[in-house]
């Protein structure tokens, strides 16, 4: 492809600088989060209905685990008390029910071609989606917590939380959401090749369910499964924040942060490569 000589771009009245300062970039992605939060208020009844589901789930878990602890005849299983287990499930379900379904959104944008229109704006498509989803995630997790808290307090009592460790747990939670975003987006972008991504989504959900600690805290798994589950990224999304909140352990926390950093770097690089490849071969449906 031959190139033309570049003509200078006139400065524009009411125009824009080409290079965004850090503050402007922060405001840019922050405002994406903010508008999504505002938008969520339009769907507040839907969100409330979904969040109310936590009451049912948590009640069932409480009955189940009360019976399990009673049959074992011990107050602690694999280092977790019944109260800690109840609070563990509240946090794990909060993440699972609250997190934004990036795979669904991105694959539908790929399929109907609307991914194209996001490309004419001066932001990165993936960063846009992360912050867009974060607005919704924060809102939904807040609602789930709101409904789940009374149930957990009633059956589990005051949570066994060391409050000084909460900031570290929030950091783990933030990285967990980023890791989930990376994996879910990669599934969404698969739509470029496979058209339909529902099966990959199902596999991912099941992996989170079993290896991610949504069914059982990883501590309850048999040893042969616990080893890999602690290293794989799925447990870093759901298990790690929930476990660290109810039974904080500094060694485990540092291990988790290290593993999160490694997986985010590795899978994030993969996602960027996949994205750049996909955008190059973008063919707009209906265009």
């Amino acid at each position, binding site marked *: *492809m*031959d*190139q*033309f*000589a*570049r*003509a*200078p*771009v*006139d400065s*524009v*009245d*009411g*125009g*824009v*600088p*080409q290079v*965004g300062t850090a503050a*402007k970039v922060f*405001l*840019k992605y*922050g*405002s*994406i989060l903010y*508008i999504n939060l*505002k*938008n969520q208020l*339009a*769907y507040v009844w839907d969100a409330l209905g979904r969040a109310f589901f936590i009451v049912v789930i948590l009640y069932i878990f409480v009955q189940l685990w009360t019976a399990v602890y009673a049959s074992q005849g011990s107050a602690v299983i694999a280092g977790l008390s019944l109260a800690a287990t109840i609070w563990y499930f509240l946090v794990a379900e909060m993440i699972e029910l609250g997190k934004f379904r990036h795979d669904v959104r991105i694959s539908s944008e790929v399929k109907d071609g*609307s991914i*194209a*229109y996001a*490309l*004419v*704006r*001066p*932001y*990165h498509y993936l960063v846009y989606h992360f912050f867009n989803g974060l607005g919704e995630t924060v809102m939904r997790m807040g609602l789930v917590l709101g409904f789940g808290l009374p149930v957990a307090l009633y059956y589990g009592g005051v949570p066994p939380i060391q409050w000084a460790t909460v900031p570290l747990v929030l950091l783990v939670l933030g990285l967990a959401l980023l890791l989930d975003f990376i994996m879910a987006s990669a599934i969404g972008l698969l739509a470029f090749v496979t058209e339909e991504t529902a099966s990959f989504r199902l596999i991912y959900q099941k992996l989170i369910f079993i290896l991610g600690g949504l069914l059982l805290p990883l501590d309850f798994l048999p040893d042969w499964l616990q080893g890999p589950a602690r290293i794989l990224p799925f447990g870093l999304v759901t298990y790690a924040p929930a476990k660290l909140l109810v039974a904080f352990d500094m060694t485990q926390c540092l291990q988790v942060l290290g593993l999160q950093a490694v997986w985010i770097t590795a899978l994030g690089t993969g996602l960027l490569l996949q994205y750049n490849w996909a955008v*190059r*071969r*973008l*063919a*707009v449906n209906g*265009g």
Partner: protein
Amino acid sequence: MQSEIVHDIEIAVPAVGDVPAVGAEEYDAHETAVRVRGLRKVFQVKHKAPGLRGSLAALWQTQTQTVLAVEDVNFAMRKGEMLAFIGPNGAGKSTTIKMLTGILYPSGGAATVLGYTPWQERRQLAYHIGSVFGQKPQLWYHLPAEDTFQLFARIYELDMVQFRRRRGFLVEAFQLHDLLNIPVRKLSLGQRMKCEIAASLLHGPRIVFLDEPTIGLDVIAKQQIREAIRTLNQEEGTTIFLTSHDTGDMESLCDRVVIINHGRVIFDAGMAELKRRYLRRKVIEVHFADGDASLGDGVGSRAEATAFAMPGVSVLQQDAFGMRLAFDSYRVPVDSVLQAVIATRPCTDITVTDPPLEEAIRRIYSE
């Protein structure tokens, strides 16, 4: 009435090659808004035979079909120009726009928009261009347009003083006074479209790509949008790249037309040139002065007695009150027809009309 097709007039239409191709001219680099040379886009489309057997076969061996969406497009645009970029469905319009806005990578050729290569410098270019895809809303549906405006102010990194001044200008130009604080879902289509277009102009783009901006709108909304676009072009020198199937949009806005079909530019000239070349069929409507007086005494015979006839002119309709004639103004000069009409009988009114622009475009498409 005007779009009536006259079968008995054979109009000689110049071959497309005869039309001067303005786009081939080179503008000075500072003058150029868009330059496109040999642009080409090939899509690989999966091909599958119908039925279960076809689906099963496709599992083993995917057959791809090559679709040539844009074959070889060449043109240039001056800064401040208003260009209509038109063509039948599937001609390659949208694909071309998507390459010029950086959405699609071309398969070959070169293009610059404001000096940027769109697909390589997409995000830098994004600050300087605006785009409206009529069928693809960008406003947040459940929120008032003002919320999207503020989001865009942040996305395009405007400072708040610039933003407010700009918003004030657009509110005036598009008459959005009461609309910005109503949730978008409660606006009419016309109101929403005005907000959509205004939103894409907030960052003061130097060039705006409008893809079917008035689709589905009523006459008044269309008129308001056209006027606002014209204001923008006149006051700020914004370059306008318009695709539309609405000839009204083109006629009221654009001074130049580029027509593409089968992925190639088949016509590129001024709007006046297009009309002169392709809209040569004139229709003359005549009202006779003594029409009423002659009503009582055998209208039929009298009309026959004075039946109008002239070589190259077909009589569409004639009675005691008047007549309608059609002819090719390229072969029969308008003044000679008028003289002949006046010579027949005294007239109270004579109207000469051009056929609609659609007719010219239909001719070009069908070539």
